[in-house]
């Protein structure tokens, strides 16, 4: 079908979701459940295993290699707007002031998600989310770690930036050895954000169509 009509995968998915959600939202909810549960979910979203290899992106960059040779990806949380029942609404109000669910995403350097923890109240902190993820299926191979931002704790599987350090080499004249880590750290960390951005872009067509049908 792709060859015949030159449709992209995202367009096919949009069409499929639109057709399925046309009669009422019941099928849409069913499809969400199917997509977000095994085996479909586990086939496409899986944590790095013990045989993880460092991607060429890091291996070929002399500024990153061999400093980040044990890094397996980036982990961060993002607030997604939510509409909870009024009784639960205070718990879903986050520190930015709007009602949301706090979702934890981990992605590898191929810009693919390796873990997602969703549905937590917006008032939950990143560190709490990470605790839940650890007990809920996030597997990190031994001696490997994710990059994370300052909202997380420094622990065996997470590498966070130094706290209270100004990370601007040019402006501050490299006054501190701690400054050196951050520019390259942020270069890798941004993969996580780009991936989430890409996800939202890809999904828009699907959900816009769905809303139009409603």
């Amino acid at each position, binding site marked *: 079908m792709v060859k015949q009509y030159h449709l992209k995968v*995202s367009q096919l998915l949009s069409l499929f979701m639109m057709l399925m959600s046309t009669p009422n939202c019941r099928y849409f909810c069913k499809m969400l459940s199917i997509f*977000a549960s095994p085996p479909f979910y586990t086939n496409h979203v899986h944590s790095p295993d013990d045989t993880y290899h460092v991607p060429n992106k890091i291996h070929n960059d002399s500024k990153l290699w061999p*400093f980040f040779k044990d890094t397996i990806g980036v982990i961060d949380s993002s607030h997604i707007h939510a509409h*909870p029942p009024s009784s639960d609404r205070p718990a879903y109000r986050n520190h930015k002031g709007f009602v949301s669910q706090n979702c934890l995403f981990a992605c590898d350097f191929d*810009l693919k998600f390796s873990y997602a923890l969703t549905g937590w109240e917006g008032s939950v*902190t990143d560190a709490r989310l990470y605790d839940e993820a650890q007990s809920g299926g996030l597997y990190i191979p031994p001696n490997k770690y994710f990059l994370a931002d*300052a*909202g997380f704790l420094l622990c065996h599987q997470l590498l966070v930036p130094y*706290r209270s350090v100004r990370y601007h080499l040019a402006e501050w004249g490299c006054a501190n050895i701690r400054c*050196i880590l951050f520019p390259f750290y942020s270069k890798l960390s941004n993969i996580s954000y780009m991936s989430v951005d890409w996800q939202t872009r890809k999904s828009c067509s699907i959900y816009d169509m769905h809303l139009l049908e409603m």
Partner: protein
Amino acid sequence: MIERIFSVLKHRFQILLLSPEYPMSIQAHIPATLCVIHNFICDHNPDEEVYMDDSNDNEHFDYDNPEHQGIPDDEEELDESGSMKEVHKHIARCMWESYQGILQQQASSDDSFNDSDSNM
């Protein structure tokens, strides 16, 4: 900077602002489903719409955002992370030495360039 990127995207794609009135169990499935769809598209059509530009990566990350969220600022309180702190320091030290080497190389090349200028 990161907050700006998110806000731009959420304004562009209204579904993330509208928060559809499904039960929370369904709403919780939406981001997970998006992850699966994203990976699915990556797997089956990896060449599709690759627009990511990481040339300005260093400018996107906002370290100073107030997302400490009650985490203790004092690293000394995190006893269990002692070994990770060593890893942290080791990486920083290695990168610092590498950076110093690059600076020295640049300085020596500048000197030789100036010398050649003065000789001319």
